[in-house]
C-alpha cells in the first residue's frame, strides 16, 4: 500500500495539469510544492486568496512569488573555462510558489508548427548542435493542444496567423482588446510584408470557467492576476482540488526521489516541510514537474536518469529586443502586456535564407515576435542615471510611456555542453547544492538575431518611432566571448534538460516521458523537449502533460482531424 497513487513534485502548469488528469481518472494525488501558497484557498470551495495585487515593488523587486536568491541561489558560467562560476544569484528564475511560473506569466500561448517536431529530418543537421526529431509529430499532439486551450481557457482568432499549424477547431474564446502600441506596430508590420496576428492568450476575454473577463489592469506579465482572469494554472489546479482526490502541500521541498529495495522502481519522494522536518510520501508513481531547471537538479541529486544526458541540452530562447521611442504616449500600462505576435522569423523568406547562407549556416530558425511596450515606473527609474537627468527623463518617459518593444524569442539550438548541474560549493537554504548553469548560445542564434533586428527596427520606424535600437540576451558580445556584468540569459523559457527519445543511450525519457531506467518516474515538464522551437513553451508543456498523464492513467488517447475543407 502506498500513501497515494501519484506524488507530483511542483504545482506549475505541468504539475497542475497532470493532477487534473489523474484525479479525473480516479487517482489520488499529492502535490508537493517548495514555494508558498498565494494562489487559491486550499480549503473548499478553493477561492482566490487575494494576495496578489497591482504592486510593482512586491512583484518585481521583492521576490514575492520567489525564489529569493538568498534562499535559493543559482549559479552561472558560460563554459567550463570560466571556472566554477562567474555569477551567483537569480538565474532565469521562474517563481517558486503554488502555481509556478504560470501564476505570473502573461500567457501568450501559441502552438508549435508541424516542422518543429521534425526539424532534423526536414532541415538537416547543423554543426555544433544536436538537433533531433521529436519522437512524435504535430498530428498526434493536435487534440492535446485543443484540450490544453480548453482547460486553460485561451482567447484567440484561429484565422489570424497564416503560418499556424492546422487546427481541429477554433479557440474557446475570441481575442481580447488590442493595445494601442500594437495597433501601430502591427499596422506598420503588415505594410512591410510581415504577418502580425492577435496573440492567443490564456486570459479570459469573456467570462469563462467561472472566472471573469480581464479588465486590462496592465499589471500582467510578472504579476499574478488579482481577479483570476488568467487560467494557467489556477484552472487545472482548482479542478484537481475540487475532485477531492488531490492534496497540495506548499512549503514542501523535495530533496530526493527514493528507490525501492530492487533499485528499479521509485518508492516515493523525501521532502522537508516548512519547519525543515523531513518526511517521505510513498506513491505508485512519481511525477517530476519541477520545471526544466529544478527537475534535472533533482534527478542529479537522486542519481537518476541517463547520467550522460541528464541536465544537458539546456535551451532558453535567444531574446532579441528591438526598441522604438515614440514622440507620443503609447500607454503600455493599459492591457495585457502583449496583444500581438508574428511568426515571420520562424518561416524564413528569401532574404533570411540568403543571410543564413552568408553566415555559413544551413538555415535560420528565429522565433515569434511579441509586440509590447513599457509600463512600470520603478523599472524605468532604476535604469536612469541619478540626478537632474533622472527627473527630466521620468517626465519625458522615453522608456515607459513612449517605448514600444519587439521581443523575438529566437529558437535556441540544443548543445550537449549547455547544461544544469550541481554547484560544487554554493548551497541553498536547505543545505543542498545549488543548481548551476553552463550556457553559451550557438553561433546560429547570434547570426539570426543580427539579421532580424535591423528588419524589425525598420518596422518600428514605420510605426512612428523617432529612434530605435536593439539588444539581445544573452548579449551578443557574450556569444562572441566578451565578459558582461550580468551575462545570465534573461529568458524565462527553459527546456531540454531531460530530453525524450526512443534511444535510451541518447535520451533520458521515453516518448511517454518515463525515465528509461526507472519506469514509474515520469517527467511532466519542458525538460523533455528535444528542441526549443521559436514559441513560448507553456501551451506545449500543458498539451504534453495531458498526453502523458492520460496514457499513464490508462485513459483513451485523444484523436482529432483537420476540419473538412469548406
Amino acid at each position, binding site marked *: 500500500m502506498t500513501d497515494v497513487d501519484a506524488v507530483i513534485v511542483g504545482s506549475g502548469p505541468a504539475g497542475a495539469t497532470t493532477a487534473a488528469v489523474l484525479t479525473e481518472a480516479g487517482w489520488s494525488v499529492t502535490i508537493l510544492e517548495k514555494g*508558498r501558497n498565494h494562489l487559491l484557498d486550499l480549503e473548499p470551495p478553493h477561492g*482566490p486568496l*487575494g*494576495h*496578489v*495585487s*497591482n*504592486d*510593482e*515593488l*512586491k512583484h518585481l*523587486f*521583492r*521576490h*514575492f512569488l520567489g525564489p*529569493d536568491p*538568498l*534562499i535559493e541561489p543559482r549559479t552561472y558560467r558560460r563554459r567550463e573555462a570560466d571556472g566554477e562560476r562567474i555569477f*551567483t544569484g537569480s538565474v532565469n528564475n521562474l517563481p517558486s510558489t503554488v502555481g509556478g511560473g504560470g501564476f505570473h506569466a502573461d500567457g501568450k500561448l501559441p502552438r508549435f508548427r508541424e516542422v518543429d517536431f521534425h526539424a532534423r529530418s526536414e532541415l538537416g543537421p547543423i554543426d555544433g548542435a544536436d538537433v533531433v526529431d521529436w519522437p512524435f509529430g504535430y498530428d498526434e499532439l493536435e487534440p492535446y493542444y485543443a484540450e490544453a486551450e480548453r482547460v486553460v481557457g485561451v482567447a484567440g482568432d484561429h484565422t489570424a496567423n497564416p503560418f499556424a499549424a492546422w487546427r481541429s477547431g477554433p479557440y474557446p474564446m475570441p481575442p*481580447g*482588446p*488590442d493595445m*494601442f502600441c500594437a*495597433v501601430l506596430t502591427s499596422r506598420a508590420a503588415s505594410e512591410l510584408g510581415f504577418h502580425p496576428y492577435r496573440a492567443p492568450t490564456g486570459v479570459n476575454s469573456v467570462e469563462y470557467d467561472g472566472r471573469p473577463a*480581464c*479588465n*486590462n*489592469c*496592465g*499589471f500582467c506579465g510578472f504579476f499574478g492576476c*488579482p*481577479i483570476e482572469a488568467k487560467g494557467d494554472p489556477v484552472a487545472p489546479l482548482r479542478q484537481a482540488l475540487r475532485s477531492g482526490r488531490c492534496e497540495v502541500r506548499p*512549503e514542501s521541498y523535495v530533496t530526493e526521489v527514493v528507490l525501492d529495495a530492487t533499485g528499479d522502481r521509485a518508492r516515493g519522494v523525501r521532502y522537508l516541510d*516548512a*519547519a*525543515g522536518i523531513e518526511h517521505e510520501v510513498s506513491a505508485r508513481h512519481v511525477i517530476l514537474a519541477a520545471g526544466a531547471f529544478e527537475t534535472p537538479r533533482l534527478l542529479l541529486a537522486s542519481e537518476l536518469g541517463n547520467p550522460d544526458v541528464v541536465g544537458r541540452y539546456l535551451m532558453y530562447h535567444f531574446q532579441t529586443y528591438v526598441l522604438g521611442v515614440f514622440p*507620443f504616449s503609447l*500607454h503600455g*500600462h*493599459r*492591457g495585457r502586456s502583449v496583444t500581438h505576435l508574428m511568426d515571420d522569423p520562424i518561416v524564413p523568406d528569401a532574404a533570411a535564407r540568403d543571410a543564413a547562407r552568408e553566415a555559413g549556416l544551413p538555415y535560420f530558425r528565429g522565433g515569434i515576435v511579441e509586440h509590447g511596450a513599457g509600463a512600470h*515606473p*520603478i523599472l524605468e*527609474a*532604476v535604469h536612469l542615471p*541619478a*540626478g*537632474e537627468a*533622472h*527627473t*527630466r527623463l*521620468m*517626465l519625458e*518617459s522615453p522608456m*515607459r*510611456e513612449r517605448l514600444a518593444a519587439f521581443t523575438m524569442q529566437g529558437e535556441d539550438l540544443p548543445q550537449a555542453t549547455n547544461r544544469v548541474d550541481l554547484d560544487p560549493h*554554493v*548551497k*541553498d*537554504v536547505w543545505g543542498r547544492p545549488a543548481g548551476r548553469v553552463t550556457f553559451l548560445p550557438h553561433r546560429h542564434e547570434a547570426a539570426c538575431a543580427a539579421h532580424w533586428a535591423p528588419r524589425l527596427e525598420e518596422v518600428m520606424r514605420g510605426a512612428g518611432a523617432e529612434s530605435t535600437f536593439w539588444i539581445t540576451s544573452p548579449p551578443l558580445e557574450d556569444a562572441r566571448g566578451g565578459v558582461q556584468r550580468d551575462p545570465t540569459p534573461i529568458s524565462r523559457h527553459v527546456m531540454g534538460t531531460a530530453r525524450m527519445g526512443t534511444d535510451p543511450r541518447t535520451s533520458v525519457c521515453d516518448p511517454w516521458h518515463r525515465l528509461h531506467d526507472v519506469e514509474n518516474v515520469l517527467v511532466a515538464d519542458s525538460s523533455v523537449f528535444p528542441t526549443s522551437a521559436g514559441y513560448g513553451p507553456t501551451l506545449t508543456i500543458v498539451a504534453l502533460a495531458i498526453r502523458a498523464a492520460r496514457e499513464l492513467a490508462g485513459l483513451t488517447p485523444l484523436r482529432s482531424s483537420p476540419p473538412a475543407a469548406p
Partner: protein
Amino acid sequence: MTEADPHYLSPAEHEVVAAACERLIPPVGDHPGGQTLGCADYVDTLLGAFTVDPPRIWAGGPVSGRAGGEARFADFLGLSRVEELAWRTRIEGSRGIPEREFNGPVTGWQAEYRDGLVALGADFAALSPAEQDARLDAVPAFKDLLYRHACEGAYADPEYGGNRDRAGWRAIRFPGDVQPRGYTDEEVTGRA
C-alpha cells in the same frame, strides 16, 4: 510613516538620507524631489521593516481602495520561516549567525547605510548641492544602493512609506494600481 514615527533611522540620519535623495532625484518642474516625496521615510520603513509584525516587506491585496473596493494594501502579509531568514539577512546582515551564513557572511543594508551615512558626513544636509554630489560620488556603491531605494521610495505604492500623497505617480502621470476598476477596451486600444 512620518519623521515623528521612526523605525530605524535617527532624526539626524533621516535628514541626511532625505537630503541625499533630493540630490539623486532633484525636483524639476512639477516633479517634487526625493525629499518631498518621502524617500527617507521609505528607507526608514525598509530598514526597520522588522520592528512591526507582520514586517513591512509585502503589502497585502487584492486592492488598495484607490480604484474602488476595500482597502487592503496596508494589511501586510506574513513571511515564512525561510523568507524571514532571507529578509533579515538582507536587511540586518548575517552577523555571524550560522543559519544566515550557509554561503558565507552577508553585509546587510543597515550596515551599508550606517557606513554610508558616516561617509556622507553629519553636515551633509547643510552642504551646497555641488559638495553633496561630490560626497555621493565618493561612495559609488552606497550611492547605487541609495539611488535604487530612492527610486522605489518615489514610485512604489505609498503603503511602503514613500511616494507621499502619491506625488511621485502624479508627477509622471502614472495612475498606479487600478484594480478592481481596470481600463475599458477603448482606453486600451485608443490613442488617448
